[in-house]
């Protein structure tokens, strides 16, 4: 049923712990050095990659580890963005409090989504999360008094300390590092292993005495919490929110990044986010038809490389080695 994730379960996860720490340190250090060599525009792009990487990772928790691909995470992400912008611009809260409220709101929405969605699997899960996400979009579009309708809302969300491009980039990098570590621990915890068990055989886990809906509910809510962090960071990045932040395209881009980076690889999300955002920028230099390119990319990946670019590379390399 949920064959996108297919055979891409992380094969190296067992031996990863020992060698991982130095590699992670090198990657983070390299990422931290980026503002020294990039232009401020490129630093902005790199910030975006980190934020959407977190979103894609949160989708991967469900898609790659619980076998349930969500098309509603863009809405969860966007709710956090809306709440953060609203809290600072309209309610006058300090950024830190607004951030907390944003993440809390996203977690609550995720919990509501989860309550409904845990009973379904496969295509039905996809459909239901899609419908739920679009309801959020419809409300953001129509509830003009609060959300500003189609025009959206503007607010100076970013704290004064982080106004420079590089400063904000480093803050987001720090957040992304912590969040990535937290998610990595989460999927490797006994709880995460249970989720993987549910992905592989729901009925077996049930007969072993696991409370499958409860595990999925918690998994979904945690995933929504992380998507909320990404959304709150995005509010600070953009200082603006409009219905397109919660639109289906947002969820779809997140899923595409997750798939492009490799389902079930977790950190592949950053690679996927980088690829999609680079593509978006490349394309928008020549044409305004980003939506079409996004659609075509999606079709091409589904037809030729459903295991994602990293998975595809692995397959090609394996062929070459032989």
């Amino acid at each position, binding site marked *: *049923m*949920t*064959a*996108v994730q297919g055979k891409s379960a992380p094969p190296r996860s067992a031996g990863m712990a020992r060698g991982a720490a130095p590699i992670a340190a090198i990657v983070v250090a390299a990422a931290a050095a980026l503002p020294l060599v990039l232009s401020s525009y490129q630093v902005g792009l790199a910030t975006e990659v980190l934020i959407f990487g977190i979103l894609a990772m949160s989708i991967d928790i469900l898609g790659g580890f619980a076998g349930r*691909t969500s*098309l509603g995470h863009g809405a969860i992400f966007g709710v956090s963005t809306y709440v953060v912008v609203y809290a600072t611009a309209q309610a006058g809260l300090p950024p830190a409090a607004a951030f907390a409220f944003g993440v809390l709101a996203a977690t609550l929405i995720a919990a509501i989504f989860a*309550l*409904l969605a845990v*009973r*379904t699997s*496969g*295509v*039905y899960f*996809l*459909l*239901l999360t*899609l*419908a*739920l996400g*679009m*309801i959020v*979009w*419809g*409300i953001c*579009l*129509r*509830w*003009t*008094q609060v959300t500003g309708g189609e025009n959206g809302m503007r607010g100076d969300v970013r704290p004064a300390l982080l106004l420079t491009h590089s400063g904000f980039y480093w803050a987001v990098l720090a957040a992304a590092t912590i969040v990535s570590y937290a998610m990595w621990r989460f999927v490797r915890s006994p709880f995460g292993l249970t989720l993987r068990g549910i992905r592989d055989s729901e009925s077996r886990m049930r007969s072993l005495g696991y409370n499958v809906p409860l595990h999925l509910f918690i998994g979904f809510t945690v995933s929504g919490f992380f998507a909320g962090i990404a959304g709150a960071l995005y509010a600070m990045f953009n200082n603006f929110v409009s219905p397109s932040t919660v*639109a*289906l*395209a947002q969820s*779809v881009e997140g*899923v595409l990044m997750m*798939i492009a980076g490799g389902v079930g690889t977790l950190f592949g999300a950053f690679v996927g986010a980088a690829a999609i955002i680079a593509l978006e920028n490349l394309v928008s230099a020549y044409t305004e*038809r980003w*939506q*079409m390119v*996004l*659609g*075509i*990319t*999606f*079709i091409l990946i*589904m*037809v030729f490389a*459903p295991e994602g670019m990293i998975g595809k590379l692995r397959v090609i390399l394996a062929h070459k080695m032989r």
Partner: protein
Amino acid sequence: MSSFQLLNGLTFAALLFVVASGFTLIFGLLRIVNLAHGALYLFGGYVGYTIATQSGSFVLGGIGSMAAIAAIGFVLDQGLLRFVRGNELRQVLLTLGVAFVLKDLALVIWGGDSFTVPIPPMLRGGMRVFGVFYPTYRLFVLLTGLVVFAALWLLLNHTRLGALIRAGVDDAEMVEASGVNIRRVFLVTFLLGSALAGLGGLMGGAFLSLYPSADAEILVFSLAVVIIGGRGSLIGVGVGSLLVGFLNTLGQVMFPELAYFVIFGPMAVLLAFRPLGLFGRAT
């Protein structure tokens, strides 16, 4: 609710039925959740609008939009979906990509303005029903919905093709093993479902008007209808359409800004008790 609002709900349900029946036919038989269905609706509306304004004939617009959308459906099924057969999730995500392409293509061709398909002179104005003065065109939509329901019911229950489709919904492999070319049945169903989206686009385009986000709105309503009614059941689509149509009208009257939310509550309650929908069956 006044009888005016009741009629609004009923006519909207009729439109939903036309669109969602195509969606559920494809979902039920081919196991394909065609997320491009909303985009097909919008595209059909635009094509119908262009033909109807150029030729001055509403009927020609209807035939044109159904033919054009069936042709797009043909390309979609034979050109793209064949590569991902048998993999539900890949199919869904692929149709999502197609939806984005179609939607953007419509924006390139017709721009971002909103259009209203011209209503033929004999359907303009209103008439008196149940003690209220009501637009004739919306009653025509209701009639069309009923005709489509009757036609689909006859097709499914009293023709050979219908028997094959019903058998295919239950067990496609068994049908194939008894010597039927199920691929062709699949294709015909896909074209029929697409044509219904095109017809819906033309009909909806005349009273809801056509604009760039109309595809997403109609898709959510169709999803709600299918989630409530259950996959591949004609009766389910009928009941689902009525429920969603009335709830939406009720929502618009009572909480205009949160109308979307009103279809969400009952859907949630229903899912808690029947995850496969009212008339859905596990396979």
